[in-house]
C-alpha cells in the first residue's frame, strides 16, 4: 500500500441532468491517509459527485457521466453501490440508515455477520447457518476501537444518543474488510459541539491508519481544523483545490459564494418607499422534519420583498410552513397587529396570507385534476368564491364557468403554455406548474405572499419569468412578498433585505448589496473565532441602502 500514486483520482468528471449542467470536468486526487474537505453551496454538485463515486443507480438512469474515476491506478465503473462497497469505498449519509431494534454489534456487521454452518445448510442454503455472536462482537469492538471512541456494543440503537448512532454508522463502514476510502456527508449536522470534536479526533486517528477520507460539511471551521486539502465546488466547477494549511474561513466562504454580482441586481430602484410594519414574528419555533426552526423573530414592512436564505437543513423552509400552519409551530405571528392563530392553515389563509410551497408536486398541485380546479380550489375553500348557490343557498355548487374564466385570465397574464383550463396539471412542464401554483396564490388576492424555492428545478427562461411576475405583482398591487430560496444570487437580485438562517435562527440580515463574503460567513454559521462557544448573535437589522 506504500506506493506514492494517488489512491483515487477523478479526471474531468462532468454530469448534466435534463440539459442543465451539474458538474463540469472536476479533477482532484486523493492519497492514502489524506483527509479532503469538500465544501460548496447547495446545488453546487457535492451530492451528485458523491453519487457518481458511489455508483448510485440514479446516475446511470439519467445518462451516466463523462470523465473517469481511477482507483488504485485502474479506471473503475460501479454499476451499483455494492460494487463500490466491495472496492472498499464506504459512505455515511446524513440521515441514519440503522436498524433501531438491533444492537450496535448487529448494526455494524449487518448482512456481513460471521456464521457457523448448521446442519440444514446443505438442504436449505447458506442462510440457515448459525450466527457466531462472539466473533461478531469482536469484529464490532475492534472497529469501534479503530475509531477511538467508547461505544457499548450491546446497546440498542433505538436507545442511543444521536452521537453514538453516527459513530455506529461510521464503525459499520470501516469494519468492511478492505475499507480504504470513507465518504462522510454532513456528519456533524446533528451532533453537539463536544460530539463533533470527538468525531474529528477519530477521523484523524483513522487517517493515520491509512484510510482516505472525504469530509463534506458546511461548518467551515471544522473543515479547516481536520482537512489536509480543501476542494471548493461552485456551480459544478472545482474552483479551488488547495492544501488546508494557511487557509482562513473567510477565504473559503468567499470562494464558495464568490460569483460576480450579476448585472440585473444593479437596476434595483432605490426610491422604493415602504408602508408601515405589516407582519411581525416573535420567537417562532417550527417542528418541520429536516428544517427545524428554533427561535426566529423578524418584521416585514408593507410592499417590501423580504428574502430568507441559508443552506439546506438550517430551517429557512420551516418559517413559511410554520406560519401557514402546515407544521407544528409556536411563538407569535401578527398581521396588522392582529394575532394569527398557528397550526390552523385556514386561519392564516383567511387573514390574507398565501403560500407557494417548495414541494410543488407534493403540496402545491393536484396533479390528477384540471388547471381550473387547481387555481380556484384554495379561493373556493377559503373565501367561498367561484360557487353558485343552489335551491336558495341551501348548498352551493362549483361555478364551473367562473373557474374557467379565472383560469383563462391567469393563463394569459402569466403566459402559461398549456392546451387550456381543462388540461391535467401533471401534463405541464416544471416552469408552467410553478406558474399554476403562483396563480393559485394570486387568486386569493393576498396581502402577504410567502414564496418558497420558486425557481427550484425549472429552466432558466422560466426562472426569469417567475421572478418578473413576482416583481410585477409587488410593484402594481403592492403585495408584500417573503421569498425563501437557496439561490443567493436570486435573493440578492430581487429582495430589499436578505436574512440568513443558520441552525434554526437568524444569523443576520443584510442589504442585497452587502459583500458576498459576508453572506458566506453568515451561511457557514461562523462563530467569530475568538469566542467559539456562542452562536453568531442575531445581528441587528442592518440599515438598508
Amino acid at each position, binding site marked *: 500500500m506504500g506506493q506514492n500514486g494517488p489512491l483515487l483520482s477523478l479526471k474531468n468528471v462532468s454530469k448534466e441532468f435534463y440539459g442543465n449542467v451539474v458538474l463540469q470536468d472536476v479533477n482532484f486526487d486523493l492519497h492514502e491517509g489524506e483527509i479532503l474537505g469538500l465544501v460548496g453551496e447547495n446545488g453546487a454538485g457535492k451530492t451528485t459527485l458523491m453519487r457518481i463515486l458511489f455508483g448510485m443507480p440514479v446516475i446511470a438512469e439519467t445518462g451516466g457521466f463523462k470523465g473517469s474515476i481511477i482507483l488504485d491506478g485502474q479506471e473503475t465503473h460501479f454499476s451499483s453501490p455494492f460494487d463500490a462497497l466491495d472496492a472498499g469505498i464506504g459512505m455515511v449519509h446524513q440521515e441514519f440508515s440503522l436498524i433501531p431494534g438491533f444492537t450496535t454489534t448487529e448494526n455494524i456487521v449487518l448482512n456481513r455477520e460471521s456464521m457457523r454452518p448448521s446442519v440444514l*445448510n*446443505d*438442504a436449505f*442454503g447458506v442462510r440457515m447457518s448459525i450466527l457466531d455472536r462472539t466473533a461478531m462482537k469482536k469484529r464490532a469492538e475492534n472497529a469501534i476501537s479503530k475509531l477511538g471512541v467508547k461505544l457499548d456494543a450491546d446497546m440498542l440503537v433505538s436507545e442511543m444518543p444521536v452521537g453514538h448512532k453516527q459513530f455506529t454508522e461510521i464503525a459499520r463502514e470501516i469494519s468492511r474488510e478492505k475499507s480504504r476510502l470513507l465518504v462522510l456527508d454532513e456528519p456533524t449536522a446533528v451532533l453537539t459541539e463536544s460530539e463533533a470534536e470527538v468525531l474529528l479526533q477519530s477521523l484523524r486517528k483513522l487517517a493515520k491508519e491509512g484510510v482516505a477520507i472525504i469530509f463534506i460539511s458546511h461548518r467551515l471551521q471544522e473543515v479547516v481544523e481536520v482537512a489536509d486539502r480543501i476542494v471548493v465546488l461552485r456551480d459544478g466547477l472545482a474552483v479551488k483545490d488547495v492544501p488546508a494549511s494557511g487557509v482562513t474561513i473567510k477565504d473559503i466562504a468567499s470562494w464558495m459564494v464568490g460569483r460576480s454580482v450579476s448585472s440585473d441586481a444593479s437596476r434595483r430602484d432605490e426610491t422604493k418607499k415602504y408602508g408601515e410594519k405589516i407582519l411581525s414574528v416573535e420567537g417562532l419555533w417550527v417542528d418541520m422534519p429536516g428544517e427545524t426552526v428554533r427561535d426566529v423573530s423578524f418584521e416585514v414592512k408593507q410592499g417590501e420583498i423580504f428574502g430568507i436564505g441559508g443552506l439546506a437543513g438550517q430551517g429557512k423552509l420551516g418559517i413559511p410552513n410554520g406560519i401557514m400552519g402546515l407544521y407544528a409551530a409556536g411563538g407569535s405571528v401578527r398581521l396588522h397587529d392582529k394575532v394569527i392563530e398557528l397550526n390552523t392553515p385556514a386561519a392564516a389563509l383567511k387573514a390574507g396570507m398565501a403560500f407557494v410551497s417548495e414541494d410543488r408536486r407534493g403540496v402545491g398541485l393536484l396533479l390528477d385534476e384540471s388547471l381550473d380546479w387547481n387555481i380556484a380550489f384554495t379561493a373556493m375553500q377559503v373565501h367561498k368564491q367561484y360557487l353558485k348557490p343552489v335551491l336558495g343557498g341551501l348548498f352551493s355548487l362549483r361555478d364551473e364557468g367562473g373557474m374557467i374564466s379565472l383560469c383563462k385570465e391567469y393563463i394569459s397574464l402569466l403566459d402559461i403554455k398549456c392546451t387550456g383550463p381543462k388540461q391535467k396539471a401533471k401534463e405541464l412542464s416544471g416552469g408552467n406548474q410553478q406558474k399554476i401554483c403562483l396563480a393559485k396564490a394570486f387568486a386569493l388576492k393576498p396581502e402577504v405572499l410567502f414564496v418558497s424555492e420558486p425557481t427550484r428545478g425549472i429552466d432558466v427562461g422560466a426562472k426569469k419569468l417567475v421572478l418578473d411576475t413576482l416583481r410585477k405583482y409587488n410593484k402594481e398591487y403592492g403585495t408584500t412578498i417573503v421569498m425563501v430560496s437557496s439561490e443567493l444570487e436570486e435573493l440578492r437580485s430581487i429582495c430589499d433585505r436578505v436574512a440568513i438562517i443558520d441552525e434554526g435562527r437568524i444569523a443576520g440580515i443584510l442589504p442585497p448589496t452587502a459583500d458576498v463574503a459576508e453572506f458566506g460567513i453568515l451561511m457557514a454559521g461562523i462563530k467569530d473565532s475568538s469566542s467559539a462557544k456562542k452562536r453568531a448573535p442575531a445581528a441587528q437589522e442592518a440599515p438598508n441602502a
Partner: protein
Amino acid sequence: MKAISFRNRSFVVRSILVLVYIAVIVIMLMTGKRHTILIDNKDSEDGSILAIDGMSIQIDNQEAWEYYPGDRDKAVVQGQRHKVRVEILADGKIVETAFRVPLNQDMVLLEVPKLLAGVEPYLRPFTVLQEQASAPAVDTPQSIQFGGDAVVPPDGSPDAPPAPVLVQ
C-alpha cells in the same frame, strides 16, 4: 479426493432428501394402509369342505371371537402382513398362519374352512359394490363471505337455526 465444491455437495444432499421424502410416503402407506378382512365359516360351493362347528379366531393381537357354521364377521387391520390363530373348540387344535393382503385391495375374504383344509386360495379379494350412500342433498357450501343473498331462506322458520358454530 477433490473437495466436492459446496454447490454439488448440497445437490447431493438435496437429492437424498427427496428420495427419503418419497420413501417415507411409501412406508407410511404400507404401514398405515387399513384393510378389512371378512372372516367366513361357510361350506365351500362344491360342498367338499364343511364349515367348522365352533372355533375361536384371533387376527394379529385383536380380540378372539367364536365362530359357528354360517357366521361371517370382519376385522379391521392396519398394514400388509397379518397372522391368524384358529383354535377349534372341539379338540383344542390350534392352527396359526401368516398371510399378506395386497396393498390396493381394501377388502379381502378369508375362508377359514379352506384354510384349515389346506386348500390354497383361502384368501380372495372381495369388492363390495358401493351402493349409493344416501349422501345428504348438496346444499351449496355457505362460505361466511357470501352467505348474503345466495340462498333464499325458508319463510321465517319458527325455531332459530343454531348460530354458525364458529368454535369447535
